[in-house]
């Protein structure tokens, strides 16, 4: 595994508040890694330490196998919490500053502005931008140096549904370029939609880490519709189902672990039913997340 980031026993105390407690974590190259956790769980604190704006209390971390330094940070594109720019400067001028700091070419400025669709507004002052535009400018800024790693802290915070969809599309596109992305969020749905791996923090403690796929594995629920009055009974009779519910137009069939929609479909066909709708629902991360949080409460 090509490790981009490795964290060992990272701890941060603010007075008596333990914002981060003995966090150990590895992020591999090419991962879209979600840091999930409720408000105040230490996501921003973790990223702040990794970017050297917050001093750690103890522990260690390494980027690309090297100790933290400004040279290492130049290979990372990052935004913490909110987009931060000089409000009285235009997008172009702001990005000039970033390019100079990162040692990136100013030639990159126009292409990244085009990529986030701010090129037409590039000469307007940052102050005059809408929240969505500000958010997009910070992604442009993070892309400026063609970074190996991108760090995004709640990049869709405060956006409308269309804005959220746009930003997520952008993140997925960037991930396709093979970049490693570390994304902090308290939106489970967001992590499920864009991430390949994730961890869960709670009050500064790591309570889970793994791949999104693994979570979605296991028992699945299938939506079924068919024009047959006996559908309910036939579904109930299926030996692979654990529960059948009626949800408006569809039946929701909870399958035993290992059973798939294909097998269910074959069973129904053998009973002379042709389905008009068949859809596998992945077990939502939300459920899993709530389960995890509950478990950690009991522990």
């Amino acid at each position, binding site marked *: 595994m090509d490790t981009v980031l490795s964290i060992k026993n990272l701890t941060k105390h603010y007075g008596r508040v333990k914002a981060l407690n003995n966090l150990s974590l590895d992020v591999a190259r090419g991962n879209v890694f979600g840091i999930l956790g409720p408000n105040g769980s230490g996501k921003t604190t973790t990223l702040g330490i990794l970017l050297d*704006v917050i001093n750690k209390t103890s522990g260690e971390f390494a980027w690309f196998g090297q100790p933290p330094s400004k040279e290492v940070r130049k290979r990372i594109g990052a935004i913490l919490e909110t987009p931060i*720019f*000089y*409000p009285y400067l235009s997008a172009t001028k702001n990005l000039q500053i*970033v390019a*100079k*700091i990162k*040692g990136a070419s100013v030639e990159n400025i126009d292409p990244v502005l085009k990529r986030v669709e701010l090129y037409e507004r590039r000469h307007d002052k940052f102050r005059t931008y809408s929240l969505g535009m500000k958010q997009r400018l910070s992604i442009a*800024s993070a892309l400026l140096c063609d970074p190996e790693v991108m760090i995004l802290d709640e990049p869709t915070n405060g956006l409308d549904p269309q804005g959220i969809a746009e930003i997520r599309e952008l993140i997925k596109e960037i991930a396709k370029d093979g970049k490693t992305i570390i994304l902090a969020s308290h939106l489970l749905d967001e992590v499920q939609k864009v991430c390949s791996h994730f961890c869960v923090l709670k009050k500064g403690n790591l309570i889970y880490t793994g791949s999104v796929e693994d979570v979605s594995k296991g028992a699945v629920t299938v939506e079924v519709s068919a024009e047959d009055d006996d559908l309910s009974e036939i579904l109930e009779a299926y030996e692979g189902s654990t529960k059948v519910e009626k949800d408006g137009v569809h039946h929701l069939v909870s399958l035993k672990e290992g059973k798939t929609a294909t097998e269910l479909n074959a069973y129904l066909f053998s009973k002379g039913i042709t389905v008009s709708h068949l859809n596998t629902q992945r077990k939502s991360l939300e459920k899993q997340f709530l389960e995890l949080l509950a478990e950690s409460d009991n522990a």
Partner: protein
Amino acid sequence: MLKLLQIDLVKLKNYRAFWVLNILYGLLIVSIPITVMEFLKWLKLQGADFDGFDPLKIPVLYFPDIWQNIAYVYTFLKIFLAIVVVISISNEYSYKTIRQNIIDGMSRIDFIKSKLATILLLSIGSTLLVFITGMLTGIIYTPNVEFAEMFTGIQFVFAYFLDLFTYLVLAFFLTILLKRSALTVFILLLFTPIEYAITANLPEALEFLIPYFPLHAINNLIAFPFKKYWFQEIQDYIAWEAVLVVVAYIVLYVYAIKTKLQKSDL
């Protein structure tokens, strides 16, 4: 270092208050000697009578007196440039851009260097303006200019530079400590009266400490020159002790800025 200066200049070049304060400062520097001379001419025209003494004969702006005189007077204007420095640094806190600069790949030391570079540039620029203004004023008004006299006392222009630079580094330090611009400017304005109130009431046994107070140290570089016009002794040289104390203060401020920034979460 040059790159760090460029970065800071992009931030300032497009900031209105930067130009307003600099231009105001420049205009004051250029206009003070003109105003003084025109005022003396006007006095003479009004037939003001100083026991038959011609006001234009007072050599305040003649070589070689001019250097110490203008250097002394101009140091009262340095608050304008200090405000430029305070705003340029407190903005980084209020916009949180100091945090983003570091995230983007500056070190905290780089940040300090970039601000010090700007302070150095302001000080050098201002010193040049003082030099040019002094030269032109002297050449225009001094009767029978002699080349040797033109540069006598020129060391006060250097003292002016040191005075200004130290004060601006002090402003930098106070801003890092207080973070907010209005508060910092307020403290900077109160600094002089408070320090002078303290030193005025110092017990005699401690009076030897007076030259080591921060603003006294700066002000000791250029002694008050005008007493000579009522025939009193003045200190018409720069004391090496004063230079040493001021340099020690610069080192101290920069060290304190560095320590404070490295300890703090941004």
